[in-house]
C-alpha cells in the first residue's frame, strides 16, 4: 500500500496519490500533478509545496486500522500460547564471576627483571598434518607435529633487554593483576630459551624491545607452561 500512509495519519500531512500505481507520493514538486479519476481533490494555495488530499484517504485509513486491529489480535493469541512455555522452561542463569587481567605487574627472565612490560603473548602451537585415503573426499586423520610453546614479551626497558644473550635459558615469570583488585595470576614458563630480540625505535614514542622465547621441556613430558591464581 502506501509507505507514507501511516506517517500521513499520524502527522496529518497530505500527499498526492498516483492513481495508476496506487502509491502515495510525497507532494514535493508535484504541483499540477495528475489526480485520480473520480477522486475529489482539495488543494491549498499559499503553501510552497502543492498538497492534495483525496477523499478516498479516509476509507483507506479505516481499512488499515481494521487490518492493524486484526494483526494485534493474532499477535496476542500467539503470545498467550508461547509465554507460559517460556516461563516454565526458563531457568535462572548461574552467576559467573570472571576476572579481567588488565595489568602486567612484573616480568622476569631468570634473575633479569624485564622492566616496563607492555604486553605478553603466550602461544601453544602444533602443526597439523591431515590425511585421507582413497575414496575419501575429506581428511579422515589429523595428527599433530610436536607442539611448541612460545612467548613474546614487549617491554619498554630496552637496556635490560639488550643485556640478554640469545640462547640464554631461564624461567620466565610474569605476574598479572586483575582489574577487580583480586589476587592476580602468575604465569611461569620453565626452560624458556631466548630466540629473538628486537629493539624498535619510533619517532616521538618510547623504544620497545620485543623478546621471543621458546620453551624447552627437560624431560619431554612435563608441560613447561604453568599458570596459577595467586592466593
Amino acid at each position, binding site marked *: 500500500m502506501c509507505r507514507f500512509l501511516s506517517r500521513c495519519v499520524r502527522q496529518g500531512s497530505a500527499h498526492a496519490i498516483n492513481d495508476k500505481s496506487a502509491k502515495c507520493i510525497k507532494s514535493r514538486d508535484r504541483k499540477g500533478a495528475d489526480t485520480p479519476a473520480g477522486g475529489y481533490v482539495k488543494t491549498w494555495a499559499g503553501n510552497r509545496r502543492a498538497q492534495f488530499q483525496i477523499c478516498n484517504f479516509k476509507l483507506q485509513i479505516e481499512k488499515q486500522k481494521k487490518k492493524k486491529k486484526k494483526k494485534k489480535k493474532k499477535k496476542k493469541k500467539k503470545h498467550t500460547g508461547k509465554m507460559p512455555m517460556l516461563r516454565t522452561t526458563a531457568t535462572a542463569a548461574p552467576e559467573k564471576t570472571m576476572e579481567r587481567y588488565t595489568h602486567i605487574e612484573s616480568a622476569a627472565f631468570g634473575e633479569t627483571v624485564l622492566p616496563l612490560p607492555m604486553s605478553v603473548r603466550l602461544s601453544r602451537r*602444533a602443526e597439523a598434518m591431515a*590425511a*585421507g*585415503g*582413497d*575414496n*575419501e573426499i575429506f*581428511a*579422515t*586423520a*589429523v*595428527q*599433530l*607435529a*610436536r607442539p611448541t610453546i612460545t612467548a613474546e614479551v614487549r617491554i619498554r626497558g630496552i637496556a635490560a633487554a639488550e643485556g640478554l644473550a640469545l640462547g640464554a635459558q631461564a624461567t620466565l615469570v610474569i605476574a598479572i593483576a586483575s582489574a577487580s583488585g583480586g589476587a592476580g595470576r602468575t604465569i611461569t614458563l620453565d626452560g624458556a630459551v631466548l630466540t629473538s630480540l628486537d629493539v624498535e625505535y619510533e619517532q616521538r614514542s618510547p623504544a620497545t624491545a620485543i623478546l621471543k622465547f621458546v620453551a624447552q621441556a627437560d624431560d619431554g613430558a612435563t608441560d613447561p607452561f604453568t599458570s596459577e591464581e595467586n592466593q
Partner: protein
Amino acid sequence: MSRLDAQDLFSSGPHTIKPGAWQRSLERRSFPGINGELVLDLGLRARTVTQSGWLQAASAEELAEKMSAVEVYLDGRTHTLVDSHGLIYQKMILEAFEPTSPIRRSRGFWCEYTCRYLQLP
C-alpha cells in the same frame, strides 16, 4: 577400507593404493644394413603396486602389533588386495613393508608406512 586376504590390517589410518603399469617384455633384434627391427614378444610381466598411509594406535605396543600383522604377509605367496574403491587386485605378492617415519606421538601413536606389492599377470 582396503583388505588383504579379507584381513582388516590398514583400517587404523588413511592410505592410498597406486597401481603401476603393466609391462610387456620384448626382445628387440636389429641387423646391419636392414631397415626395421625384429621384435620378439616374451609376454606380460608383473607390475608394482604401492600402498602408502598411516598406521595409528592408542599405544606404542598396539602399533607394533599392527605392524607385525602386516609383516606376516611377507611370505612370498600371492594374496588378494581389495582397495577402498572395491577394486580387486589378485595375485599380489608383498615384497616390502617399510615404516617411512619414526613412531610419532601426538594424538595417540602413529607412523607412516609404504607397502610394495608385485602383482602377477
